[in-house]
């Protein structure tokens, strides 16, 4: 893009660009850094000198949170819900995506529209109807209810992403497989799924983040303390210990760490999932 002849003119815009980027980066990082500082301070330090470097660091808050049984309950519940939801979404969505991408049948378009209804109704908007049905099914105060709802609402976008990928697999492969005596199921299992691993990872990454961060579904469906997930528990924790900001900071930091670690390792899958879902949905 940059042409050598313009080198001189481009020097100052370059610096200008970095100034903009740095300002934006400071804006983004600031709250996170503050939480880290706050975590490493005592309650008293947080009240008197909240913005200085935490020297010497105080590990007391982290230790306190890590020894709270409730923190581990939340962690366990969040992990459980996240894993089951993700497996459910990947399995159920890839089955449907296979049919919509590979088999011709009557009313296919109509059915596909039905399967993408979830794109039009975000879970926030439908939370009251969901609460009513979950109550009818007697699944209030059970993680199963949370898992089922999160799975259902993640299906549409996952089916769209997977269908697009499955369609890009050449049809010749299917023909070759059928000549080798492979039926639909065999083709799906032995050829398509192994090929589709990157897109399955993309869908999984998207589901993991959505499930992990979801507040509303557990908030509405769960009120037993032992069944709280991390976001729900974090909100309650803030209500309970709101005065002790350094402890709250430690709690925030520790509940954010799994997400940040995940982000570092799965950035590519996550990014491709988000953009594919948004741009093709």
């Amino acid at each position: 893009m940059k042409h050598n002849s313009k080198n001189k003119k481009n020097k100052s815009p370059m610096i200008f660009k970095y100034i903009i980027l740095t300002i934006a980066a400071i804006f983004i990082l600031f709250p996170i850094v503050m939480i880290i500082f706050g975590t490493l301070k005592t309650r008293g330090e947080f009240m008197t000198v909240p913005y200085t470097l935490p020297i010497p660091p105080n590990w007391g808050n982290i230790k306190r949170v890590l020894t709270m049984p409730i923190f581990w309950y939340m962690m366990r519940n969040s992990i459980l819900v996240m894993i089951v939801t993700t497996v459910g979404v990947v399995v159920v969505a890839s089955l449907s995506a296979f049919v919509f991408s590979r088999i011709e049948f009557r009313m296919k378009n109509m059915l596909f529209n039905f399967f993408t209804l979830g794109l039009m109704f975000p879970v926030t908007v439908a939370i009251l109807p969901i609460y009513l049905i979950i109550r009818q099914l007697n699944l209030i105060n059970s993680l199963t209810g949370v898992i089922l709802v999160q799975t259902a609402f993640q299906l549409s976008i996952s089916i769209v992403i997977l269908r697009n990928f499955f369609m890009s697999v050449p049809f010749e492969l299917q023909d070759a497989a059928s000549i080798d005596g492979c039926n639909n199921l065999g083709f799906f299992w032995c050829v398509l799924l192994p090929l589709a691993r990157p897109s399955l990872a993309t869908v999984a990454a998207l589901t993991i983040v959505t499930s992990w961060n979801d507040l509303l579904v557990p908030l509405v469906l769960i009120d037993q303390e032992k069944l709280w997930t991390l976001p729900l528990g974090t909100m309650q924790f803030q209500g309970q210990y709101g005065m002790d900001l350094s402890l709250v900071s430690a709690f925030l930091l520790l509940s954010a760490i799994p997400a940040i670690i995940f982000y570092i390792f799965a950035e590519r899958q996550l990014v491709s999932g988000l953009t594919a879902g948004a741009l093709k949905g």
Partner: protein
Amino acid sequence: MNTKGSKEDKNIKLLPQTNTFTWQLQNNMTIILFLLPAFILLFIFLVYPIFRSAYYSLFNWKGFGPAVDYIGIENYTRLLTDKIFLKAVKNGILIVIFSLVIQLPIAMGLALIVGRDIPGKAFFRAIFFMPYILSEVITAIMWLILYNPNPRRGFLNAIINIIPVLEPQAWLADTRLVLPAIFVVLTWKYVGFHMLLYITGLQNIPRDIEEAALIDGVNSRQMVTHITLPLLAGTIKTSIYLSIIGSLQVYALVWIMTRGGPVNASEVMSTYMYRYSFVRFELGYGSAVAIIMLLISLTFSIIYLRLTRNTENVS
């Protein structure tokens, strides 16, 4: 679908033509069995509850026992004349407008810088996108601490205290400041996501178009306004649509930071619905709110689909 071209002798007995009937049957079984799980989940948790809610919205119902107190469309007339609900709608529109005029241009600006070959682009991208993966709960509590009105504790006021002309503000307790204050947090959290969409859009623009323009002597501003932005039109539409749907979804942030207050100044539709449904347990009325929200998001989705399908046909 074209199996005829590639037959091989030894496999002839396995070819579909030999027993079309079994193949057809197998196909149909696959279709039904494979679609069934998703169909059931979507039906039970999406379609059925919505119709059920539409039904309850015609009743005065507190959520216990069967709904018997039929009141017709009274919930809807009450809702559409309720000043607080109208305030919530207005706040939603304001958030969308803020997004369009402030958040999306910032995202676009960052994408134009970071989407190119500039040293350190991956680093900055990763930073800008990071807030998106933090939950709204964590985000809200973090900013609650920053917005603390006491200048000794809230960072924002601490900075303002240093600057002589400015006075510390009660950010979240001031009816005029609360919505902009929440909007700053929304921008903090979502600007990276929109930036990412634009970067993807930019990557899809063929390089040779820009190179041809450069040869024709186009300067960088002309390049952005006459070439890059028009080519990004599809992506921009998507990100506008997502902002609109997103503003309907803003719940956790507002509820944790302000509960829609002070005096409903930061009320949005989802907090309004939550309050009536799950705090006051007026489930009939809450259902009416949910149905209106569903209609709004459905309307925008349909408009959006129409718009994007049209452009797809053109290009």
